[in-house]
C-alpha cells in the first residue's frame, strides 16, 4: 500500500500543523484527551506536541490496558501460579506490580509463568502438556476481548481457563468527564477499539456532553488530522462524532467480533488501578463458560489489593491529571529498568512512553 507512506510524510505533517494553528482559538486553552497507549506512543515518538500551538494541549487518559489492571487481579494470577497452575500472558504483564509480588517475581520463586505472543500459542501449549493446568491472564480493551471470546467459544482443552481482566473504554472516557478540574474539550477516540465497537458507543459524548469526538488512526498524520478536526469543532462550537480512520473503522464496527464478545461475556462492574470501581466497565465469562473461568474453576477471588505504591503518582498519570515528569520519582527512583508503578512497566504506560522519548518532550 503505497498510500501508507503519505500517512507519515513530514511535509504533510507541517501543513496539517499550520491548519491547526489557523483554526485554534486566539484566546483560551483547548484540552484534548486520548485514551490509547498507541496514540501516546505516536504523539511522543514523533514529537507531535511540539507542532501544536501553545494553547492546544493533548493529554493521555487511561489507555494502557495493562496499567489499569488492579493489583488484586495480579494477586489472583500470582496466587494461581503459586498453586501450581501454569500462567500464560503477554510480556507486558509480567512485571506489573501486584500487592506483594509481580508475576515475574513469582516466576523467579519457581512458579511456571510463560509469555506468549498470541493466545493461540497458550492453547497449543495446554494441548501439548495435558498433565498441567493452564491459565491465560486475558488483559486488554475491546480490541483484544474478541480474541479471548473466539478461543473461549472454540475448541478448548479441559486443562485451559482464563483469568479475565478485560475492560471497556467508553466507561473510562465518561469517568474523565466527571473529574472536576480536568476540563476536557474533546476526545480522540482509539482507532483499534473503534474498529471493533464502531461509532455508536461514542454518541453519548457528543449528545449528552457536547464533546467533539474524533476516531483517530495511529500514523502521525492521522493523529494530527484528528487533532485538527477536534480543534476546528471546538472553535466552531460544534460537537460532532467524526471518523478520521475510515480505512479501518466502519461505522458499525466489526459485527462478527461484537457477536463473539456478546456470546462469551457479560458486562459487569470492574475495578481500575488508580481509578476505582466503574459500573459496566468489565467483562466476565458467561455462566455457560464457567468451566473456563479460572476464578470459578479454582475458587480464587482477591477483593482488595494495594494498587499504588507510596510516592508513585500513577493514579494521577492514568487520568491525565499530571504528566510523568511531574512525578518526583520519574527517571530518578523509577526507570524502565527499575519501574515503580504500572505506568512505567508497560510499553504503553504513559511514564514508560515518556521515559523512552525524553528528548521529544522536554520543551
Amino acid at each position, binding site marked *: *500500500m503505497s*498510500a*501508507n507512506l*503519505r*500517512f507519515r510524510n513530514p511535509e*504533510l505533517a507541517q*501543513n*496539517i500543523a499550520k*491548519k491547526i494553528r*489557523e*483554526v485554534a482559538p486566539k484566546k483560551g486553552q483547548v484540552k484534548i484527551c486520548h485514551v*490509547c*497507549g*498507541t496514540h501516546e*506512543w505516536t504523539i511522543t515518538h514523533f514529537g507531535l506536541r511540539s507542532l501544536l500551538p501553545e494553547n492546544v494541549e493533548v493529554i493521555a487518559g487511561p*489507555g*494502557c*490496558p*495493562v496499567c489499569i489492571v488492579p493489583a488484586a487481579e495480579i494477586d489472583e494470577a500470582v496466587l494461581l501460579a503459586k498453586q501450581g497452575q501454569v500462567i500464560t500472558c*503477554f*510480556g*507486558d504483564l509480567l512485571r506489573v506490580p501486584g500487592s506483594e509480588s509481580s508475576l515475574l517475581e513469582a516466576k523467579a520463586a519457581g512458579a511456571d509463568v510463560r509469555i506468549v*505472543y*498470541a*493466545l*493461540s*500459542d497458550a492453547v497449543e501449549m495446554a494441548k501439548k502438556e495435558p498433565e498441567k493446568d493452564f491459565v491465560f491472564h486475558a*488483559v*486488554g*480493551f475491546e*480490541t*483484544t476481548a*474478541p*480474541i479471548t471470546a*473466539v478461543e473461549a467459544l472454540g475448541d478448548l482443552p479441559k486443562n485451559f481457563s482464563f483469568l479475565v481482566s478485560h475492560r471497556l473504554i467508553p466507561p473510562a472516557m465518561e469517568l474523565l468527564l466527571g473529574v472536576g478540574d480536568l476540563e476536557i474539550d474533546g476526545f480522540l477516540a*482509539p482507532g*483499534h*477499539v473503534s*474498529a*471493533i465497537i464502531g461509532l455508536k458507543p461514542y454518541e453519548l459524548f457528543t449528545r449528552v456532553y457536547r464533546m467533539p469526538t474524533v476516531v483517530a488512526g*495511529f500514523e502521525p*498524520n492521522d493523529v494530527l*488530522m484528528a487533532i*485538527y478536526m477536534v480543534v476546528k469543532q471546538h472553535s466552531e462550537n460544534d460537537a460532532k462524532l467524526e471518523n*478520521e*480512520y*475510515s*480505512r*479501518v*473503522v*466502519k461505522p458499525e464496527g*466489526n459485527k*462478527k*467480533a461484537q457477536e*463473539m464478545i456478546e456470546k462469551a461475556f457479560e458486562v459487569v462492574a470492574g475495578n481500575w488501578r488508580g481509578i476505582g470501581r466503574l459500573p459496566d466497565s468489565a467483562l466476565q465469562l458467561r455462566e455457560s463458560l464457567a468451566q473456563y473461568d479460572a476464578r470459578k474453576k479454582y475458587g480464587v477471588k482477591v477483593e482488595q489489593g494495594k494498587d499504588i505504591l507510596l510516592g508513585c503518582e500513577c493514579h494521577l498519570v492514568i487520568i491525565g491529571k499530571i504528566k510523568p515528569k511531574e512525578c518526583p520519582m520519574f527517571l530518578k527512583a523509577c526507570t524502565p529498568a527499575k519501574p515503580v508503578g504500572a505506568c512505567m512497566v*508497560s*510499553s*504503553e504506560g504513559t511514564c514508560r512512553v515518556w521515559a523512552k522519548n525524553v528528548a521529544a518532550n522536554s520543551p
Partner: protein
Amino acid sequence: MLMCLAIPAKILSLQGEKAQVDFGQGVLRDVNVSLVEAKLGDYVLVHAGYAIQILEEKEALETLSLWNDVLASTGE
C-alpha cells in the same frame, strides 16, 4: 508489545480460520482470521496474532484526498 497496536498484513494463503500473512519485507506469520471475512490478497489488521479488521484501500485513498481538500482550503 503494544496492546492496542494492530499491524497491516497481506493474506497470502487461507486455510479455514488460519491464514499465512505477509507483514512486508518478507516477514511471514500464521494468524487466525475467524473474526473477519477475509479473501486472498486482502490487507488485514493483525492484533496479537488475530486479524481484527480488513483494511480498505479505497478508504485509505479517500482519506488522503480528504486531507488534500482540507489543506487546500484557505484559512479564515
